[in-house]
């Protein structure tokens, strides 16, 4: 059985599907970052804007990923691009929520102190708010990344390709080795994403914050 599963990895389709899966996930995540981060920056000083963003984000999180993929189907048709759009839409809420709460939760006292030292609005953003909010923002990107890799498995249902194709093919042809090869490779890809972003997360935490965390005994 194990050699059968390994045999699937040796087939010529496997690298293609793996590449599709990675391209779908990476591009969707990048699109979501490019949309969500500037929006979070724009609304960082308005209470109404932040409330709207967080509510949109919360509703967005309640929409099942399969629902978004399937709902785009009648409008955009079958294929890679529809899956890409759906995955990008799905990846936005966690980044938007974390970025806007992270930026808003920077201690007002610190910002006042920076203003008192004569820093301009953009200097405060670049040197104070962004570094302090960086770990929270990055945690949102991590959540999105893991979720995107998982949801990219569903792209197969709307003809978007990726490793989900193996799972569906295995089910249809009653080929347990194809099914399990697909399942294991997707699971490993998701766990690698989770662990990899975990390392990046600590790299994105400014030194000063790490010292503070240690002092608090975290």
């Amino acid at each position: 059985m194990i050699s059968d599963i390994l045999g699937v990895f040796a087939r010529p389709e496997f690298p293609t599907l793996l590449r599709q899966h990675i391209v779908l996930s990476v591009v969707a995540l990048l699109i979501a970052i490019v949309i969500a981060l500037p929006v979070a920056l724009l609304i960082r000083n308005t209470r109404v804007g932040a409330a709207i963003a967080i509510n949109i984000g919360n509703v967005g999180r309640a929409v099942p990923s399969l629902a978004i993929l399937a709902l785009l189907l009648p409008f955009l048709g079958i294929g890679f691009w529809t899956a890409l759009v759906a995955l990008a839409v799905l990846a936005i809420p966690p980044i938007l929520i974390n970025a806007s709460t992270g930026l808003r939760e920077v201690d007002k006292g610190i910002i006042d102190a920076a203003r008192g030292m004569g820093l301009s609005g953009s200097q405060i953003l670049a040197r104070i708010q962004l570094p302090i909010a960086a770990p929270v923002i990055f945690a949102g990107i991590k959540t999105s990344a893991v979720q995107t890799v998982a949801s990219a498995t569903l792209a197969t249902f709307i003809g978007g390709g990726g490793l989900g194709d193996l799972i569906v093919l295995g089910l249809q042809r009653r080929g347990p080795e194809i099914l399990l090869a697909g399942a294991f490779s997707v699971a490993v890809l998701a766990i690698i994403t989770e662990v990899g972003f975990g390392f990046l997360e600590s790299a994105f935490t400014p030194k000063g914050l790490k010292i503070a965390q240690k002092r608090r005994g975290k």
Partner: protein
Amino acid sequence: MSNPALLLLQDVLEEPKLIDWEWLRENFWEDIVPAFQGHIFLSFISVAVALLIALPIGILSARYRKVYPPVTFVTGILYSIPSLALFAILISIPAVGLGPTPVIIALVAYSLLILIRNTVAGLDSVPPETIDAARGMGLTNRQILFRVELPLALPIIVAGVRIATVTIIGIATIGAYISGGGLGALIFDGINRQFPTMIIAGAVLATAMAIIADLLLLGLERYLRPWARARKA
């Protein structure tokens, strides 16, 4: 016109209405209501079973701190396995097979991390002075747990139930692919028949269910924090 995307587009163009109200009316009792009920059943059973498992593990993890890291490691790995992959692995086990069973097992597995984490956070949030006071009043450890710690931890535990429920309602739609039933069946049928009405019905109802469950549990969470309400007033 061999491109499937073009063929589908043609279908959509020939069928100008995205929502076929007549179909909805005719199939309301036969298709839509059972799918909705099935979805509630799957989600409710899964959250209930997950709570039965997560509460004792959470209480143990809060007591014996050494247990906690391995528990979060294992449940964290379960949580990051994509649902379709977990479904696929479960149905390959002969004793499980197709149907609602693998769906419920997977949904329980997904809830564990969130529920255990919030149980521990809830118990941690109880001030040590409160526990000291309870001990001073002569309460036993068991009494302290059930009468002091758990009630005070309840809002945070319910917050975990809220996140888990919304997640589960979403993932349960995918369970229809392995014959688990529920609203996902409408979505998959709609995709296979290229019939947008079914897709929209399934997607909108699943989203509505998630939002309603979220709001109801948010209300419960607030109701369970009488001290926060008192402070605000």
